[in-house]
């Protein structure tokens, strides 16, 4: 399963901005409802979150610490 941005349908006002900016075609309007299609092409650019005026669309990050020592020390 590919992870995708998530959408809170209650907050969405169906303005369609996210659909218009997504370059990978992951966000579509189906019967006037914004729908996210799973695709490997989503590179988490977060543009859809940036344009969403209502905060309905979110691209969340997991923050992890990589424990490997620095290579160039």
């Amino acid at each position: 399963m590919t992870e995708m941005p998530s959408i809170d349908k209650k907050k969405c006002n169906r303005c369609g901005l996210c659909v218009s900016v997504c370059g990978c075609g992951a966000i579509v309007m189906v019967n006037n409802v914004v729908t996210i299609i799973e695709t490997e092409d989503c590179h988490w650019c977060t543009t859809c979150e940036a344009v969403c005026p209502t905060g309905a669309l979110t691209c969340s990050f997991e923050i992890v610490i990589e424990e490997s020592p620095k290579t160039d020390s």
Partner: protein
Amino acid sequence: MTINIAFLKLAAYFAVLSNAELDVIKQAFSEKTFQRGEVILWEGEMSDVLFFVAVGAVKIFKTSSQGKEQILSIARPGDALNDISIFDGKTNPVSAQALGPVTIYGIKRERLQIVFQQNPELTLNAIKVLAERTRHLFTLVEDLSFRHVLGRVVKILLTHAGDGGGPVQRLTQQEMAAMAGTAREVVARSLKALEEQGYIRLENHRIVINDKESLQKILTDTI
């Protein structure tokens, strides 16, 4: 091409007019469309047409002398793109690029002057619109120029980081902005700066901290 007054009404500069008044002034406007990635305006160029967004989203950015891009805001339907250069007669302070298919409405400076003369309430309203924008920009300038915001973003990263083992709380850039008390654009820029320094790596839906010590140093230096 017909100008839709519903879109004109979205523009803060004209929202104070009634539908009947908008119907009269709409003849002064023209429409232009742009595809994803097309540049609508370049920083440093002169403008003689006031542009604002009718449909779509537009990236407003500046480019530094080293060619680095700094996103200042996203313009949505109703937002003007070059009001500052139209009003002061100087060059565009920012560039604007279509993030997807975009429809722009434009009105020539001379026609705009006539519309303002015929509808004096527009002038007072324009001052209000510009004042609101100035206030927003002041906050942005403060956050962009002071290191404390970077420190706050680093603190958020360190506090919310997991070791990749168990489930960790996930955060959006919007949430980080709310936590750091700043705008999303400032968080995006801070993350980019940390990535350029090699302290973190932005992967698909993961922020990987690869130099925890340097981040901790930023934290102590900025407190």
